């Protein structure tokens, strides 16, 4: 089922009951820009340094909401989707970031996925911030990956009727190698198709006066630039039991990773992407770069892995940058998703008596779309800093996680996974983090 919210301020998801938090915030936050102007260095008594929370508490009320412009081609403010194969489920959401809401511009991120015969194909893309129609490129790129992969997977099934079994066989064997190559080639082909699709999308709008008006010149391919993360997810039976074969390709920033909640913290996170980046923040590579016309150029970027996992994650830099360095901070992302009831938390951590550990409660910020609505979210970062525990401690102590989670604080809701993910992406606050956020999550049953 799919949820498309196009500036539906009236059809908002109701807030969690949090009157106490609302009362506190009403006192603390500046009401207007003038209040902030009045603040000079001398008004910060005894504080040489401000904490990030001080700053974000201050800016919370200042982020404005401007709807997406009417033309040309507006995109929904957020999209989300959930689907299940029985053995695993895919939950994905993409939301417009605070900066775009403030400026009144479109969401530039996109995702697409399909479950095919007990396997999944997924794509995530981030349209370049400086490019006017990058959202169109991002959507076209993601859809092209899925479309091509579907066709190629059918062909692989025909040519290799036992391919699922072979993928579960001896990794050193020729059969495994053969099928793996097919899968990797398919993925590379889908990226080249994505490039072609972005080109076609640009071509289609060439000479369109509405588009030319936006950039004040003729449109070009560059205006549709975007990153691309593409992956295939295949459950297989091996002599070690159920494992998952994943093949992934990354062009640009963002990240792809696998998480095994049953593993020790040292081996629980497997980084499967490789972000392109320059020396400064924001500098990256795009799928529309000439070199990527040729699928061969993607060979060094293709990563294949078979092993245990309980979650597979793909995300744009709007999320990845908030968990840096990704190794090991993406484990903190998994913890945030568990604490907020978005990722299942059934792993075999050890239960302990945590009566003496005081955990901080969830934090509420006003929703940018409607300042009267507050969403209470839990932050692993806060749990760790307030308790003095380490990432490893929280990873092992499942009972403490339960205690610190939203449900542990009596915040229960009727929302489905896709809605919760949307709310979380739309509302978690991190200083300097206001980009579009997209996260695609595959969770297995074990």
């Amino acid at each position: 089922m799919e949820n498309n919210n196009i500036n539906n301020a009236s059809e908002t998801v109701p807030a969690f009951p949090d009157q106490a938090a609302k009362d506190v915030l009403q006192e603390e936050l500046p009401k207007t820009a003038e209040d902030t102007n009045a603040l000079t260095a001398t008004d910060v008594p005894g504080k040489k340094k401000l904490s990030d929370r001080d700053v974000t508490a201050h800016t919370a009320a200042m982020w404005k909401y401007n709807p997406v412009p009417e033309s040309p081609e507006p995109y929904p403010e957020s999209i989300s989707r959930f689907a299940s194969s029985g053995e695993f489920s895919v939950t994905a959401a993409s939301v417009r970031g605070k900066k775009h809401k403030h400026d009144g511009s479109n969401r530039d991120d996109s995702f697409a996925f399909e479950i095919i015969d007990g396997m999944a194909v997924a794509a995530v893309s981030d349209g370049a911030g400086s490019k006017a129609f990058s959202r169109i490129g991002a959507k076209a790129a993601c859809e092209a990956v899925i479309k091509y992969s579907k066709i190629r997977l059918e062909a692989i099934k025909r040519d290799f009727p036992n391919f699922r079994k072979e993928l579960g066989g001896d990794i050193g064997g020729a059969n495994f190698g053969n099928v793996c190559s097919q899968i990797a080639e398919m993925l590379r082909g889908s990226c080249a198709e994505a490039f072609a699709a972005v080109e076609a999308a640009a071509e289609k709008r060439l000479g369109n006066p509405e588009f030319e008006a936006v950039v004040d010149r003729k449109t070009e391919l560059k205006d549709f630039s975007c990153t691309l993360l593409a992956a295939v997810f295949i459950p297989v039976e091996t002599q070690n039991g159920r494992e998952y074969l994943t093949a992934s390709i990354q062009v640009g920033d963002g990240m792809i990773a696998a998480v095994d909640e049953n593993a020790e913290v040292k081996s629980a996170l497997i980084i499967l992407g490789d972000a392109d980046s320059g020396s400064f923040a924001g500098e990256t590579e795009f799928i529309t770069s000439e070199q990527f016309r040729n699928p061969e150029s993607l060979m060094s970027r293709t990563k294949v892995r078979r092993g245990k996992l309980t979650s597979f994650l793909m995300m744009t830099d709007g999320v990845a940058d908030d968990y840096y360095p990704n190794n090991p901070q993406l484990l903190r992302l998994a913890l945030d998703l568990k604490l907020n009831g978005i990722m299942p938390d059934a792993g075999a951590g050890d239960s302990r008596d945590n009566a003496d550990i005081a955990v901080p409660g969830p934090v509420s910020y006003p929703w940018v779309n409607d300042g009267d609505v507050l969403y209470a979210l839990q932050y692993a970062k806060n749990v760790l800093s307030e308790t003095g525990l380490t990432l490893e401690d929280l990873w092992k102590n499942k009972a403490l996680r339960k205690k610190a989670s939203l449900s542990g604080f009596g915040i229960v809701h009727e929302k489905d996974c896709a809605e919760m993910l949307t709310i979380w992406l739309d509302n978690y606050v991190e200083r300097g983090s206001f980009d579009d956020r997209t996260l695609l999550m595959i969770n297995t049953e074990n």
Partner: protein
Amino acid sequence: MSEFSRRLPVYLLLDVSGSMQGDPIEAVRHGVRALISELRGDPQALETAYLSVITFNSSARQVTPLTELMLFKEPQLSAGGATALGAALRLLADCIKSEVRKSTETQKGDWRPLVFILTDGAPTDDWREAAAVLKTTKPANIIACAAGAYADTTVLKEITECVLMMNTLSAGDLAQFFAWVSSSVKMSSKSLDAKPGANIELPPPPQGFVIVP
């Protein structure tokens, strides 16, 4: 927890030579105040912008080290002396080297810094080498503004491609300059994913300001 990274460093290089005495330096003081006030009304600037002021006359001084917007204190500015632009450029390069954080494996770096240079006269010291280094290494997006009849835009063109000329040092012109700096800082995030070396998008310059081709 670790210090906030992903900051947008902004450096103001302000000419405080003798010719700036009187009304011009007063207008600059006013302009800096207005810039800070404007930026403090913007949530994105509040979360990410860190400002530093470097002044230059017979020598160059970093009067305010890179400081976050909410804690930024207006610097004391007084005019008099020569125009050591070279010293200012060398100091700028040093400050960027020591204050700006590049991306590493363990830390997301700052956004590429923005530098605004305001000068009303020709340099009186050795500046060519420092300018050439900045132009080739591009450690920042540099925007240079030549104010008044005695400013030398050819010098500024040796530092950066982006040079503006404003005809006078009037209070009005200087106010417009600082308002434009503010808009540029607010707008810069749009083009922050531009490839290194590519031009960043800037708002149109104020009335009466000329872009030097």
